[in-house]
């Protein structure tokens, strides 16, 4: 038995820690831990509800558009306003471009150094030396694509900026719509950049992913877990948000179900928080129950000294299960990809989703109607509640908002990485990433690259995962048809 601690795990949006126990060459126990805390929900209280879309973007530098979107949806829900036709499409285009940027950067910049040997130059050295299997010519070609991918990802961020002012943290994702008119020159510029990106995806990224999957095909059986997943829909088809291009869905044991928000609970028994209802080991609830009786005016507060806890991430559970989110879950719900649940499946699904979104965006550009409004003004309600649900790059993202006296009285965020990288719950059930690590073979305990490959395929982002429970609203029945 040997304990291996990787602290920090790099090449993730924010560093985190993995601790595994290896016995007989395999992982028998795993803990994932996030070691930093900021407390967004506490900071949001008392502020103007419109500010949430800009401020919550600051939760995460690589998926800021997703937070902007969830915040806009939540306020629209509370204020009873819908964006105009153009506003909806523009927001989809901004989030879509940001998703392309995220996935391209994840595949090349964050993932590939686990499989491809870099040049002999910092920050590529030092690094692990074992199990790099690509023949040198292939290795060289992929490395070139690595550099090109950086340019392509930058281009995707320029698309975000075209309609969104700047990236990260675009300004044009707002409750009420968007702000840049789809004039011919801007649309043309956007379209031309999109074309370059889609060419890169088709001609480089997809072949590179296939090459990788061919050479490292054992990773189809490493990092596996039960097919338990959760998806919040992404990209509304129309401004009324009746249907989304990537639909809502829950997958339990591989079977598809409707999403029932009442079935979400959040557990803090192994996270550094105290307060709320009950004590460690009790049912802290969130979403479904958090804002019910007994939770009013109570909140979980950070306590780094709490015994038995090992992370800043809470443990959200769906129907009591640890479920994962992300590209694989979304494609599974769509029925586009059901090959399996493993490290390589997560990577392949992310790459395929990149292509899918890039193609969809070409169609959305056609739907823009120049000359029509992009933004609809509205009044902030004095007292209201709202929910904003969207798919973020890494999985389901929800913002829950309560307004009193025209100000934010409660704000709750449940992020994708909270789902994916959650710790054990009161019943001792590990989070999805912890489950996926079990049985991972470790050939050399001094170079545990297998561990890194498993965790990185989740595209974990601890920046988005650390939050505080704050008092919010009581949720109404909310079932989303698939």
């Amino acid at each position, binding site marked *: 038995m040997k304990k291996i601690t990787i602290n920090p795990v790099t090449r993730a949006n924010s560093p985190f820690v993995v601790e595994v126990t290896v016995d007989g060459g395999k992982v028998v126990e795993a803990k994932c831990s996030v070691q930093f805390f900021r407390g967004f929900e506490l*900071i949001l209280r008392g502020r103007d509800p419109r500010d949430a879309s800009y*401020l919550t973007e600051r939760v995460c*530098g690589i998926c800021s558009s997703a937070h902007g979107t969830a915040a806009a949806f939540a306020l629209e829900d509370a204020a009873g306003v819908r964006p105009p036709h153009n506003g909806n499409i523009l927001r989809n285009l901004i989030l879509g471009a940001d998703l392309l940027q995220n996935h391209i950067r994840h595949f090349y910049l964050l993932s590939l150094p686990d499989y491809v040997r870099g040049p002999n130059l910092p920050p590529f050295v030092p690094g692990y030396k074992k199990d790099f299997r690509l023949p040198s010519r292939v290795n060289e070609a992929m490395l070139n694509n690595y550099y090109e991918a950086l340019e392509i*990802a930058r281009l995707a961020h320029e698309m975000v*900026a075209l309609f*969104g002012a700047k990236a990260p943290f675009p300004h044009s994702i707002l409750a009420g719509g968007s702000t840049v008119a789809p004039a011919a020159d801007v649309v043309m510029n956007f379209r031309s950049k999109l074309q370059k990106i889609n060419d890169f995806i088709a001609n480089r990224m997809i072949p590179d992913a296939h090459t990788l999957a061919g050479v490292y095909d054992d990773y189809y059986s490493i990092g596996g877990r039960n097919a338990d997943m959760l998806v919040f829909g992404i990209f509304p088809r129309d401004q009324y948000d009746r249907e989304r291009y990537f639909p809502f869905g829950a997958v339990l044991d591989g079977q598809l179900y409707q999403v029932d928000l009442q079935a979400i609970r959040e557990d803090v028994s192994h996270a550094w928080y105290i307060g709320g209802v009950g004590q460690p080991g009790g049912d802290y609830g969130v979403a479904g129950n958090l804002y019910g009786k007994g939770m009013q005016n109570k909140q979980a507060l950070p306590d780094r000294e709490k015994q038995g806890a090992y992370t800043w991430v809470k443990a959200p559970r769906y129907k009591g299960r640890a479920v994962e989110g992300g590209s694989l879950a979304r494609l599974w719900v769509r029925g586009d990809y059901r090959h399996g649940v493993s490290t390589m499946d997560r990577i392949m699904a992310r790459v395929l989703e990149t292509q899918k979104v890039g193609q969809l965006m070409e169609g959305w550009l056609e739907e823009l109607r120049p000359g029509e409004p992009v933004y609809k003004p509205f009044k902030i309600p004095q007292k209201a509640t709202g929910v904003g649900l969207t798919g973020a790059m890494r999985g389901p993202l929800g913002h829950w908002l309560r307004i009193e006296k025209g100000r934010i009285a409660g704000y709750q965020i449940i992020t994708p990485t909270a789902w994916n990288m959650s710790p054990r719950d009161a019943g001792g059930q590990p989070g999805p990433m912890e489950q996926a690590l079990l049985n991972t073979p470790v050939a050399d305990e001094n170079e545990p690259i297998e561990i890194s490959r498993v965790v990185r395929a989740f595209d974990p982002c601890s920046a988005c995962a650390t939050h505080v429970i704050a008092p919010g609203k009581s949720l109404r029945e909310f079932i989303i048809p698939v």
Partner: protein
Amino acid sequence: MMKIKDFIKIIGKSGMDVKKTTNQLVGGLLAGDKKKRPPVLWLGTNTCAGDSISFLNSLDPGYRAMITNLIDFRYNHFVMTAEGDMSTGVLEDTLAKHAGEYLLIVEGTVPTRSGGLYCVVGHRNGKPYTALEAVRELGAAAGHVVAVGTCAAFGGPYAAHPNPSRGKSVQGILDRRVINVPGCPVNPGWIVGTLAHLVWYGEPELDEYNRPTLFYGETIHNLCQRRHYFDSGIFAAQLGEPWCMYKVGCKGPVTFADCPYRQWNGEHVNWPVKANTPCIGCVNPEFPEHTMPFFEHLPDIHLPQITVNADRIGAITGTLAALGIGSHLAVRIKKGRLAKTIKKGLAPPKLGLQVLQTTPAQKLVDGIKFKLKKKN
């Protein structure tokens, strides 16, 4: 330092095409003087990595040119291959071998709560190595310390009320001078430009907040393409309109940055006002605490519920100066008649809104003429 003459000679000899991108020129310039490539440690503390990502958005030079020609980019959690002890070993190694030489870039606030345990960057001797310790240690021995992004420079969003992690700016925990390159996120041009300046010419000229005046020397308002609308009192009444954004919350008048010129992302395609949204003052020492609400215009944010202390008067005086309002008003502020004076002084002329509501061209022109006459 290489003189420009020598540089041109090298270019001539190398047969390099002068029309080539800056990217290649930077490479050519530095190829002759490899020693100049200083080790850079980019330490992420409590951050969202937005500044690292913005750094990657640099176009000329791009990332590849930067790491091969400009800097020896040793440590950055977002891009580095090493992890665990191997990665924190890079910090130790650089500290031991290049003290006084390396650049420390810090991205993020540095939490001080629970002895710094609200951000741990690695472990050492079986104990957590906190961001607080890391910044103190690495900061003490660095050639220069650069705080990149508003969090590192001034505290930013995570240090906003009630500051749950008791986060501080880098300057707040270091005794030495910290060069602040704020922005939420930092503009690629600001950070890469600051690095280039440090590598080639040494420390840039800094303002009273230790920001390079090269990028933060003038207000957004003074550089804004919509300034003529402001001066003529033509204001957007809602987001998405193409006029001056002052009434919907623009903090350009109190924000020192060159966004209107430089604009954002690789090709410099856009910036908030061009996108018909307000500047939210993200480079300011007071962002976001006192640039919120983002969609309310200036006088409103500076008045209610805010205690007036010396700093605040400074900021407000700055506002007045930027708006071109006489210094006699500033004196009155110090005497305490703040609310009334500011409201009177800063309330945008009604004229603009009336003009906007009716908009026939002649009326617009008449209004502007009237305003100008009144001014003279």
